[in-house]
């Protein structure tokens, strides 16, 4: 029975994907599909929406999704290592809210930010140790840790769930506000994060280890790579990236709304990662996938806002586009022996 399915999928591959793979560049993976989709939607908007193509609007578009993009970069590291970090929104809002609270009580910028960073590292260590050493699946670990961390905020660490940006932190408010030579700082923050994480993943040894651990953990350990510390490192990095995103976000909105943990942000983050073509089975993809996934989401949302589309309609359109992207990928790249055996979440 199984062999017949394999045959069928092999046949499907020989049809559609053979045609597509003749295109320049060879393969026709999800990254290409999403890039094409992004270009198509972008061109369509540029044609029908007056003002869409203005520099101001394009910068606004980028600014809207920069925090999402930064989070996606952190998530990408974990997903490439064949894990998932559902606690990222908690690591985004609680440590940043701690920084705002401490600064408002007069502890000074450096100690406050240091305390927030320490907290983020602690969250990452907790996640990493539970996943790597206690061998609890990352899905459950990070879900539980995330709820726990968000709960810490709710039991009365902060006066209110929405913590406002204190004037004491104004010297570092630029990380989310204002612009450098016309380029908003939050977009620059996304750019810097993308470059740093790109270099880390592709040019450094620990970055290579992340790919190895996601591609084949067993072989990774056999070759003498310290698998468990590499896993812990992934979660620490993703928590720190989330903390950075949290500081950008709170500077930008002049407050940190810790209620966002209860909203659907984490799905958006997974979305830009998976949409860009970083498979949940690990070992594949990189920074460029996140950037393209983020740009696609940002473009869709920006255009729908310009068109003054109602809220429910925006969600519907977004859902349909994503469904289309995932569907296209599974049509062109049907499952084969290799991919179907890897652990999907």
């Amino acid at each position, binding site marked *: 029975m199984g062999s017949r399915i394999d045959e069928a999928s092999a046949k499907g591959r020989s049809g559609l994907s053979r045609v597509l793979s003749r295109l320049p560049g060879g393969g026709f993976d999800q990254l290409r599909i999403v890039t094409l989709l992004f270009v198509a939607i972008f061109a369509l908007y540029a044609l029908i929406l007056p*003002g869409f193509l*203005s520099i*101001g*609007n394009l910068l*606004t*578009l980028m*600014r*809207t999704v920069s*925090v999402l993009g930064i989070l996606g970069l952190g998530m990408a590291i974990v997903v490439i290592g064949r894990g998932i970090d559902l606690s990222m929104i908690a690591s985004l809002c609680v440590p940043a809210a701690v920084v705002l609270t401490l600064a408002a009580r007069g502890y000074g910028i450096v100690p406050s930010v240091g305390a927030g960073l320490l907290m983020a590292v602690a969250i990452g260590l907790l996640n990493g140790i539970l996943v790597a050493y206690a061998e609890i699946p990352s899905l459950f670990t990070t879900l539980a840790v995330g709820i726990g961390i968000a709960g810490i905020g*709710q039991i009365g660490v*902060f*006066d*209110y*769930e*929405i913590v*406002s940006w204190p004037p004491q932190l104004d010297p570092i408010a630029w990380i989310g*506000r*204002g612009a450098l030579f016309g380029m908003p700082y939050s977009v620059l923050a996304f750019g810097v994060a993308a470059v740093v994480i790109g270099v880390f993943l592709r040019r450094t040894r620990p970055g290579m280890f992340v790919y190895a651990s996601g591609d084949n953990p067993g072989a990774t350990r056999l070759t003498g790579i310290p698998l468990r510390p590499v896993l812990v490192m992934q979660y620490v990095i993703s928590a720190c990236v989330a903390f950075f995103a949290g500081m950008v*976000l709170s500077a*930008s*909105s*002049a*407050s940190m*709304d*810790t*209620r*966002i943990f*209860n*909203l659907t942000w984490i799905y958006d983050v997974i979305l830009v990662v998976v949409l860009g073509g970083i498979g949940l089975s690990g070992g594949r993809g990189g920074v460029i996938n996140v950037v393209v996934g983020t740009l696609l989401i940002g473009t869709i949302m*920006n255009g729908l*806002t*310009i068109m*003054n589309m*109602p*809220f*429910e309609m925006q969600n519907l359109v977004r859902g349909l586009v994503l469904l289309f992207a995932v569907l296209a990928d599974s049509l062109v790249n049907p499952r084969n022996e290799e991919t179907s055996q890897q652990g999907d979440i």
Partner: protein
Amino acid sequence: MRKLFEFACGAALAVTVLGGQIAHAQTSMDDPLRDSYYENLTGKKVVFVPVFMGLDLTEGWSKIMDTQAKDLGYSYEVRNSNFNTSAGAQTITSLISEKPDVIVVQNPDVQSYAKLLQQAEKAGIHVIQLNMKTNYQTTGFVGADVELIGEKQAEAAVEKCAGGSQPGKILVLAGPPTSPFSAYMLKGYENVLNGNAGVQIVSVQSTGDYESSKAKSITQVVLQQHPDLCAILGVWDNADVGTAAALQEAGKADQVFLTTSGGGGELACKGLREKQWQYYVSYDVPGQGRDLNDLILAALQDKNPVGSTRTVLYTPLVTYTPETLGDEKCWTLDTLR
């Protein structure tokens, strides 16, 4: 003569003593209402089901309700539904079998809890809806007349924006589509703005669950499309912190007239003093708390079948501008008594 004097003295003494006794008797008397009032209240149970604790509104109401419960000796507890409508529905379902005397509920939207609230009243529990109501009327409603808030905000925007050679452009920010604070407020806007040639609504967008970051990004996109935007009708002070941040970043804080509303807490005063918003409609949480406590007491003393009386108390609204604010001290949790 002497006898007469003795008699007078005796009489005076007698009058003094007697009078003293009468005066003494008049200082003490039993209040016939008092004992039964307190006896009736002890052991009663009031439960608050908010959309979300940790906001200035919910924490304020809760503190006021809690204080009265402690003073009068009935029990008060909070079951937080944490921005999760199905969790809230479960809470109310389990409360229907627990049978507290009063449920105070803040509804996430106009529909979700309506049937459950009806069932609760059938089961003999008084239901008081707080600030956000469903389309089903229960024992009591305490809260803002949201349509009126919309009208006031829209009128302020018209005053600012109409009268130019071009119609003044207005952006409307709303909350979740089915929330009473979106639907009724939009109605209020329509009442004033529809048919007014001096203004033009260029965009109506939802900020999701009152997210300040979403309010900020929508404002940024719309400002790009309409650099000559004249006013923004905001939905809630906590979310409009993001709206104000977008205006400030674009250097348009002076040009665009931002109106918003909220419970009149410290954020309201801060925003007005720092010119984040130029018009603020307050639904006065301390006042609402008093109204709420009164309705709770009325419900606890009610001997008639549940549902035989229904009371609506729309909160008297207070409007502020930076000019009329004066030295107003907006409430904080510490100043609530």
